[in-house]
């Protein structure tokens, strides 16, 4: 958590193709906004990785690289919260069925750590199914102590 030194609120929104290049773009955008919001290098790394993992989920698991589907990406902050929202047009998945990557039987799995890392690096993380289809995730990091 960083003290906000009067940075002007900022919001950026993009509709991105379902490609790995979009993952890089979103990470870069989010880290840029986070940097201007006043986060330090360690938090920038955590935010960048959380956004990257969320974008990979949207592009790879949600939209399945479908060229006709887009990822809606927005990042912004006010004086207290840095917020990222990412939504895909995929079929969604059962949030409750995610295996615990720290369970002994899952430790040597080669996948399934993305959401665990997002939760570890952000202060808040929410997932919801959208009425129009798809999944939206919201990532929040606090700019001031709560």
């Amino acid at each position, binding site marked *: 958590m960083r003290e906000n030194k009067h940075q002007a609120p900022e919001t950026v929104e993009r509709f991105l193709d379902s490609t790995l290049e979009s993952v890089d773009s979103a990470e870069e955008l989010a880290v840029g906004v986070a940097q201007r919001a006043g986060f330090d290098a360690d938090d920038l*790394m955590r935010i960048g990785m959380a956004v*990257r*993992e969320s974008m990979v989920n949207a592009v*790879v698991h949600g939209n399945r690289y479908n060229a006709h589907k887009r990822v809606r990406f927005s990042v912004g902050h006010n004086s207290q919260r840095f917020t990222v929202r990412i939504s895909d047009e995929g079929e969604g998945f059962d949030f409750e069925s995610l295996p615990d990557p*720290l369970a002994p039987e899952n*430790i040597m799995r*080669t*996948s399934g750590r*993305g959401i665990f890392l997002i939760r570890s690096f952000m202060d808040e993380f929410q997932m919801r199914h959208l009425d129009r289809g798809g999944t939206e995730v919201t990532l929040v990091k606090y700019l001031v102590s709560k």
Partner: protein
Amino acid sequence: MSIKLNTRQVGDVSVVDVAGRITLGEGSSALRDTLRDMVGKSQKKILLNLGEVSYIDSSGIGELVSGFTTVTNSGGQLKLLNLNKRVKDLLQITKLYTVFDVHEDEAGAIRSF
């Protein structure tokens, strides 16, 4: 910078110097290909030098686990060298740090095989 992999031989140990980002796409697939190629050539002692790795995501972590399993199942050993703080932290929060044999000194790592 994407990933750069350089392989060298120190005695009977194959050292892979990895630099850049191990992320979904080119980074993780290049690492996977390199390790599979080494296993295919029956190289049994592999030391992954991650000292110049700037970034690793969950896909990259998955590749490390996959490589470890592939090498171990072929009767070999895969060890890690020179983890920076970020990579070390990632392996610790995912509880993988104790799965790997991690070294900070190359000579000591070579002797440990």
